[in-house]
């Protein structure tokens, strides 16, 4: 893999296939924690951290435990069991959830020790990363074989870049919502409804990136 390939993954995950604005994954924390910039950055960092780690761990899990050994040649399971067992269709989603849940717990424990203020600010949204579909989404996308199988470095890089893209979208949104708080919005549209409309408008502008990387 050359440098331009890595650059394409980074640019693609942040702009072209931004998890929030192009794939619409993880809208719950996006709407919930984007009211203030400092909280949005904190949440973005937590999600980036979890996404990167989850990408790395789930890639190892997929390639060394779940896939049959015939294709990769070094499957631990088939080494122990002695026969070829393809666990991908039954265990992929379940084991990924386990990995993500454990990682979020680890982040939570670490954050409570290192930054209690951020821990309090994120509140319920920190444990909610467990069920953040953007994290699950990046893990699943990293470990599909189509259009081609990612290497470990590529998968981790995509997870990290997706997290950065998530944080960027959160930052954009929090800046807009800090101004929206002062704006004269019709009563029925105040808060979440107008935030969704703004999200749609940003997403529209992000469509402009779609043509940059060839077929996208």
């Amino acid at each position, binding site marked *: 893999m050359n440098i331009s390939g890595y650059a394409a993954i980074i640019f693609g995950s942040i702009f072209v296939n931004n998890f929030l604005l192009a794939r619409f994954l993880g809208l719950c924390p996006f709407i919930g924690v984007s009211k203030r910039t400092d909280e949005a950055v904190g949440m973005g960092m937590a999600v980036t951290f979890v996404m990167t780690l989850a990408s790395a761990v789930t890639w190892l*899990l997929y390639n060394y*435990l*779940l896939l049959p050994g015939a294709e990769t040649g070094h499957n631990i*399971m088939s080494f*122990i*069991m002695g*026969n070829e*067992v393809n*666990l991908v269709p*039954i*265990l992929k989603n*379940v*084991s990924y959830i*386990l*990995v993500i849940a*454990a990682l979020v*717990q*680890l982040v939570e*424990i*670490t954050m*409570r*020790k290192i930054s*209690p203020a951020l821990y*309090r600010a994120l509140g319920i949204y920190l444990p909610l990363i467990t069920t953040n579909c953007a994290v699950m989404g990046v893990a699943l996308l990293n470990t599909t074989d189509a259009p081609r199988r990612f290497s470990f470095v590529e998968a981790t890089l995509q997870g990290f870049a997706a997290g950065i893209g998530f944080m960027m979208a959160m930052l954009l949104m929090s800046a807009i919502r800090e101004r929206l708080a*002062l*704006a*004269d919005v019709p009563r029925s549209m105040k808060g979440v409804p107008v935030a969704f409309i703004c999200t749609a408008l940003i997403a529209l502008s992000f469509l402009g990136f779609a043509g940059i990387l060839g077929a996208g």
Partner: protein
Amino acid sequence: MELGFIIGSIFVMLGLGAIFGAGLAVASAKLKVDRDPRIDELMDLLPGVNCGACGLSGCEAMAKALLAGNAEPSECALIPPDVAERVAEVAGTDVGQRQKRVAVVLCRAKDVGRRHDYSGLSDCSAAALLQGGPTDCVYACIGLGTCADVCPFEAITMGEDELPRVDPEKCVACGKCVQVCPRNIISLLSVEKYVHVLCSSHDKGGQVRKLCEAGCIACKLCEKACEFDAIKVEDCIAKIDYEKCTLCGKCVEACPRGIIRDIRIDQHWPKATDEVTAAEVKSGE
């Protein structure tokens, strides 16, 4: 093959679960945060709205200050006396003395001219930034109700005259409105002393006369009327020395502009109903 699936799945999930479980157990032991259990106990007793009336950054900061002996339970404006006693018990401090204060809007802007029609954001701070604000009097209430918006207790409502009304029952003197008012016309004052000079203008008398029907013109009639030397005109505005004020009401009668007032009349204090008659309310207007 079927058996392989089942055994394989069980093996993988059990293995993963054991590894992650052990990892988290180690992490939680290594990264343990020592926390005084009394903080949680106090947090249950304190209101938990983080209003900041105590002068600290929130209820948890208050709980910590209580345990460190840097605060008294009575500094929390929201807890009733019986809860304050329990807080004092847990924290091992005295309850302390507190004087109930309320926010008072020191302006009764009446017929104040407008230097321009403001049509921007409905926010006093934003309006005040534009050409020094829309009112001719630069000390007058702008009337867009930012204080009412910011009040976490819904104690402030905007009256028909576009002036804020403070409900002293709901107000806990958290000071949010005081901070947000761009004209600095809201003060936290003791409930006990309910006669105030409801004007904040430092303009000279003649100038005030031109700008507002209800402004202090520094005529010093109140100063002469006061038998207790409690009221002084300084910097073109009457000031009451609340230590000396006995609430006799002489200055209220003497003021030709009707701005020295028993604010219980304006704000319909529950206490005032039996003391203040309807006729008095009318004559006050």
